[in-house]
Structures are given as C-alpha cells and as structure tokens.
C-alpha cells in the first residue's frame, strides 16, 4: 500500500474512538469533529516523516484535544500562539501511555454514545443514517449524497439539519447504567440495520453505487460486536448482514434485474462471509437468548447452507418465521412465513395465511407479488394477473417492476400453471 492509502485506512479505523473521546471532552459535536479534522491534517504532515504512531487513535485524541484547546485560547485572547507550542509536536511515549489510560476505560461508551446520538428518535431514519455515515464512518458529504442518489447540496442540508436537532436535544454524557446501555445498544443496532437496508434495497442500476452502505453497516456491526462481545443479538445482527451481503454478486443480472434466491448462481455467493456469519450464529445460539436478529440470521443461514434451492430446509424456515412472528409480530413477517409455508404445505395453505393481511398490506408491493405467485400455482391466472398489475403499480424500483413484468410475460405466453416463483429474497 502507498503511504497515503495506509494513512487513510488508519484514520478511518481510528475515527469512531477518536471522535467519541473528543466529544466527551468538548461536549459539542462540531468542536469534536473540527478537532479531529485538525488532528488528521497534522497526521498527514507528521506520519509520513516520523512514521506511524503505535496507537493512532490515542495520538489523534491527544493532538486533536490540544489543537482545539489552543483554538479556544486563541479566540479568547485574540493573540497568536506562543512559539514553543511543543505539546503537539513532541508527543512522546509517556503521553501516549497517558492517553491510552485516559481513554481505555471509556472508549466503549464513547463509541456507543457517538453512534447513539445519531439515533435520536426525533430524527427521521434517513437523517439518522446520513448523520451516522458522516460522523461515525467519516464518509464525505459527496459520498453520502451519491449513495442516497441526491445532490451534494441537499445532503449537506440534511446533515446540517440533523446536527442542529441533535444539538438542541442535548447529548447524554454521563456514563450509562446497565439498562440504559442496553437500550442504546438496541437503538444503535436498529440504525446499523437501516444503513444496511438502504444499500440492500437498491435496484440493479444503483446497486453498485449503494454497495458501500452495506459494507459500512457491516464494519459498524463488527465494531459494535468488538465492544460488546457477549451480546447474542449483536452477533445475530452481524451474522444477518454478512449472510445477506454474501449474496450481493448473485442478486442482479447484467440488465440489473433482481434475481430471486432460488434462481441465483450459488457459486457467486461469498463463502468467506458465509463462514463468518455461520460462526457468529453458532456462538449466539449458545446463549439461549433468542431475538429477532438471531432468528432472521438463522433463516438466512439455512438458505446459505443449501447448495441447491431444493436442498433448502423450508420446514425449519417455516418454524423460525413462526418464532419471529411471536417476538416481532408484523404482517410482513407473516407474508414471508407464507412463502415458506407454500413450500411445506402448498399454495392454498399459504394463500389462506395471507388473505387476512390484505387490509394492512394494501399498499405493499411484495404482498401482491407473493399473492400473484401463489395464484399462478393454483392455476388462477386471471386473479394472478390482477395481483401482478397492482404490484407493478406499487413497485419502488425499476428492478422490482421488471421482475413482476417477467411473471406477467410468462402468464401471457402460456396459460398453463407455471412453476412457482415466490418472493423469498
């Protein structure tokens, strides 16, 4: 790697800890970010000459803190800095050791706090995600704007607005108690899941642009898991993201049309990510504290383990969706369960299961896609066509619409009942 690439990676990996600690010192997000930026500029000057520090995060915290304090002093006295400002240039080992001691005990809560302030309930999800990507991940506004497919100016405005709202709300700085910590953890986990979904729900033509969102979500999930190593739900979340992302290269064809799970080329699945996801699920299960992320990861794991679609353990998947319905009742979960049910007990049972959902899912694309697929299996082609027409009207992306159109084309071609193509991805 080149020098600059090395330094970039070091700054990125040190960022959550450094900004988190600086936020604790200054209790102001803008000051903390500015201090970190200053420290990065100094790192770019000093590291190529003096070599990298042993502990980049501590170095950045120390230098950032001193730089910001100088800034405040300078502003107060309106006079230039004294010439012998050695606190910045002469960071020796003792100071580094001190910084390490200062922050070692705090850094878990520092990083958690930094993530947590992005999850403020007043912020709409899109603002939470944008704020986290900017502050915690350090993505540039331009990168975030690109991933969200909006202009840089619009994203700048969104982030500024989110920051103002967070500042007004007051950041909780006291060390959290056990209950509060677990509440923060749950909010942060949900936010990481949102970041992933932003990337994952992209259509074929935008999938590559939005893939970094999935990768960033995985990086944050791993970070969180490193801080809270014995939390089965964080293991489950990380496993879920890894197992889903493992299929990224197989999910779209050359035209950008979504390829369903059972039609995917499974040799394109990333076995390394799958191995890591399965290892995490194994670990999580030992705790015997089930939760929605673990159950979803277990479902994804069963799909990953099937070498061919027909090897899929649908019975087990049906049971897992049943368990998910209990802990997280939602019509969407039931809809997914119905797909598994159709494989185990047939399309009629599955259709019976989803009919009561109609009033609540009357605007949900996937409901009509799944319903149409069940109806084809039952040979009720005219009703299937109506369901697919409705699905196309509700499609969120061009890939979704294209996929349903493919079903319709097949219907037009032959009126015979087709092999089912239910939505399982």
């Amino acid at each position, binding site marked *: 790697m080149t020098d600059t690439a090395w330094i970039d990676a070091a700054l990125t990996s040190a960022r959550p800890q450094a900004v988190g600690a600086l936020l604790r010192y200054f209790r102001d997000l803008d000051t903390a970010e500015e201090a970190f930026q200053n420290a990065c500029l100094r790192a770019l000057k000093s590291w190529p000459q003096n070599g990298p520090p042993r502990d980049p995060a501590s170095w950045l915290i120390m230098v950032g803190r001193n730089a910001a304090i100088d800034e405040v002093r300078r502003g107060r006295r309106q006079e230039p800095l004294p010439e012998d400002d050695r606190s910045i240039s002469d960071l020796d080992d003792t100071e580094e050791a001190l910084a390490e001691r200062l922050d070692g005990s705090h850094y878990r809560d520092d990083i958690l706090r930094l993530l947590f302030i992005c999850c403020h309930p007043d912020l709409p999800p899109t603002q939470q995600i944008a704020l986290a990507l900017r502050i915690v991940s350090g993505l540039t506004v331009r990168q975030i704007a690109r991933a969200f497919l909006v202009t840089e100016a619009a994203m700048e405005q969104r982030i500024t607005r989110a920051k103002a709202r967070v500042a007004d709300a007051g950041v909780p700085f006291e060390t959290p108690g056990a209950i509060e910590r677990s509440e923060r953890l749950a909010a942060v986990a949900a936010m990481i899941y949102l970041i992933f979904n932003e990337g994952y729900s992209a259509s074929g033509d935008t999938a590559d642009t939005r893939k970094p969102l999935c990768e960033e979500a995985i990086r944050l999930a*791993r*970070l969180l*898991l490193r801080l809270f190593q*014995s939390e089965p739900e964080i293991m489950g979340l990380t496993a879920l993201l890894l197992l889903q992302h493992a299929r990224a290269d197989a999910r779209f064809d050359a035209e950008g049309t979504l390829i369903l799970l059972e039609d995917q080329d499974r040799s394109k699945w990333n076995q390394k990510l799958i191995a890591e996801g399965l290892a995490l699920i194994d670990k999580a299960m030992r705790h015997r504290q089930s939760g929605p992320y673990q159950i979803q990861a277990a479902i994804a794991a069963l799909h990953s383990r099937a070498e061919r679609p027909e090897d899929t353990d649908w019975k087990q998947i049906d049971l897992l969706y049943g368990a998910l319905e209990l802990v997280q009742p939602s019509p969407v979960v039931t809809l997914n369960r119905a797909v598994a049910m159709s494989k185990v007990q047939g399309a009629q049972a599955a259709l019976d299961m989803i009919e009561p959902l109609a009033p609540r899912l009357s605007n949900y694309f996937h409901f009509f896609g799944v319903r149409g697929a069940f109806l084809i299996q039952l040979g009720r082609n005219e009703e299937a066509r109506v369901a697919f027409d409705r699905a196309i009207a509700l499609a969120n992306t061009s890939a979704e619409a294209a996929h349903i159109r493919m079903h319709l084309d097949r219907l037009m071609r032959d009126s015979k009942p087709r092999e089912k193509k239910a939505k399982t991805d």
Partner: protein
Amino acid sequence: MLYAILCYHDEDFVGSWTKEQDAAVMTKLAVVQEKLHKQGRLGPVARLLPTTAATTLRKENPPLVLDGPYAETKEQLLGFYLVDCKNLDEALDVARDLGAANPGGAYEIRPVGMFAPGGALK
C-alpha cells in the same frame, strides 16, 4: 526446525482496507509464499476470521467458555504460517520478507514443538 510465524495486526485497521487494498496486499504476500513454496519450506498458511467470530475456552475446572479472543489487546492474531528454517535468523528473514509485502502490525516467531501435517484437510 519448523517455525510458526504468527501474524498480529490491528483488526479495525485491516478491516478498513478496501477490497482492492486487501487484494493488493494478498498478491504481494503470494509472491513471498511462492518463493518459500518452491524451496519446499512452506507448510500450512491460514488467515483467520475476525476475532468477533472467536470463542475462548478457559481451562478452569469446569472449563469456562467466553465470547471473543483470548487476549484483549490492541492487535489481534489474524493468521499464521508454518515455515521450515535452519534457525531463528532465517525465520526472521522470512518474516521481514512478509513484512515488506504487508507492513504494519507484528509477527511473532515461535519454534514449533510438534507438527502433524493433517493431510486430510483440503
């Protein structure tokens, strides 16, 4: 003498590499490995999954199973090589070669007491 070369590095840092950066490092390391392989000195090489996937068994009575890696340190054990070397100097030479291909972190060089090739593994 067989030497184990244990690869330690900051996991957050290695995890921040882009796919391309990661691949570039792997390509450089492959060159060193190929050289050792041609000399018939290279044993198994492993890159380990992240420490978040690790579990530790403490040999207490009864044994205690803990989540995470054994040591909570800044740098983590990320992989290892088994290399046949005449002595420590030669092992250090190999580690320097590897280090030039993948700077940062540290290699711990440990003489191997017992070695079973485990030929059944593919």
